[in-house]
Every structure is written in C-alpha cells, then in structure tokens.
C-alpha cells in the first residue's frame, strides 16, 4: 500500500489503449454505442474518430485508487465528471493527490489526461487506509 498522507501523490497509472481496445471494452461492458467502435459513424456525427468509453477511463481512475490502497475492497466511493474525449492509441495518465486522511479513510483528488488534456476531471475518491 502507498503511503497516503495529506498532500502525498498516489502512484500514477499510465496505460495506452490499443487500436482495438474500444471493441474489447464494448464486448466486456455491453456498451456498443457506435461512436466507440465505428470510425465512419463517429466522423459522421462530428467526432474526430472513435472515442474511448468514458466509463473505461473512469475504470483507470478507479484502478489508480485500488492499486494505491491495496485491493478492490478499499474503494468506497468515486465520483467523476467526463470532459473532453479520450481517443485510442494515445497514453492515458492518471494522477492523484491525497486531500484528506483521517480515521482510516482518505479522500483522493484525481484527474485522467491524454496529451495534457483532461478527459476526466474533478474525480474524488474515498478509500479505506
């Protein structure tokens, strides 16, 4: 488990979704919205191309918490706002800072970004420590 004192950074998560990740995540999650898996459809509705599922990106934010805390049972709450769009084949970086830590619980402020642009912002996690 990471040392989670106020002001500490949690270990960052870096992951590069490959070209076919959105297809695998669609199958795994059941979310087959074509903006995530069909390049032609995505462009036709004004997107730059297929975009990442926001809930996949949120799962990376969640993974940063469970890895910092030492297991899945430690994550008690996570709230996020989806902003911007994530795209395949570009590294996603998740970083977080401990805002509060008391009585066996810590609150972590987290963001996920791609190429310097936030794709998940104002993420707030509560974990048991």
């Amino acid at each position, binding site marked *: 488990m990471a040392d989670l004192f106020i002001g500490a950074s949690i270990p960052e998560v870096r992951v590069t979704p490959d070209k076919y990740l959105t297809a695998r995540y669609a199958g795994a*999650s059941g979310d087959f919205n074509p903006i995530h898996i069909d390049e032609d459809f995505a462009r036709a509705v004004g997107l730059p191309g297929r975009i990442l599922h926001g809930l996949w990106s949120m799962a990376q934010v969640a*993974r940063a918490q469970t890895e910092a805390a030492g297991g899945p049972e430690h994550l008690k709450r996570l709230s996020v706002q*989806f902003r911007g769009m994530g795209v395949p084949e570009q590294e996603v970086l998740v970083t977080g800072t401990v805002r509060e830590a008391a009585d066996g619980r810590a609150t972590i402020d987290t963001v996920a970004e791609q190429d310097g642009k936030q794709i998940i912002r104002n993420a707030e996690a509560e974990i048991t420590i």
Partner: protein
Amino acid sequence: MPVNTQAIGKTYSPTLYAVGREKIKEYSRAVGETNLVHLDHEAARAAGYADVVAPPMFAVVYCAPSVGPPIFDPEIELNFAMMVHGGQEFEWGPVVVAGDEITTTASVKDISEKDGRGYYVFESISVNQRGEQVCRGTWTDIVRGV
C-alpha cells in the same frame, strides 16, 4: 422548450444479474487489471475471497440492464441523439464475487434545465443475494439544446 420533470421519483422494475467468473475476467482484462484476485479464482481463494472478485467499476455491467431502459422511457422525453454522459458516482459496499446474484433498481432522481441544457439524474441501487447493498450509482446525463 422546458424539460418535462413529471417523471422525477419514478422507479423502474428491478433487474437481476448473475455474476459469472469468466465475465469478471473478460471485464478485468479489458480495463487492464493486473491484480490476480480479478483474474484467477485460485489466487482469489488464496486471498480469502469465495471466487474471482469484480473490480469496483464492474458495477456498470450488473447495472446496465437496469439503467438502460429509463433513458428510452417516453415519459422522460430524453433526446438520446443529443445526450452525453456528464458525470458518474458510485458508492460501494461489500465486494461482488463470481456466483453473486445482483438485483438493481433504477429510479429518476432529478430532471432540471440550465442554460439550454437538460440534466437527467438517475439512481441505481444494487443489492446482492444476502440483501447487502453492494453499490449505489448516480448517473448524470446532459442533453444539449433542450
């Protein structure tokens, strides 16, 4: 055009989701989990769990049958073509493991309008076969141009 707020408080029929070991593994691989408690049932048992453990965000899988239909409920008049997923919150209770049966009930928590955008907030409550609340989800969808 103002948003229709009459559906606030509406609750939908519960849905049942049976959590499968291979589905947890498939989901865990797709989100890049490396912790073996999500990927190997023997490792999970050695760590004290009954079977492979669902990552917390697996909630989107067992909630999906429940939170999908309200978006298309004609009583809500949500313009799906103009909708984006604006925000998401989950609160978790005991972990979910393969073999669990999760019952999820969705409801309309709030509908409002601000600066030409409609805000549709749905809530999902998921309980396991022992009646323990394993997850409460708050799903905020934003519709442009209402």
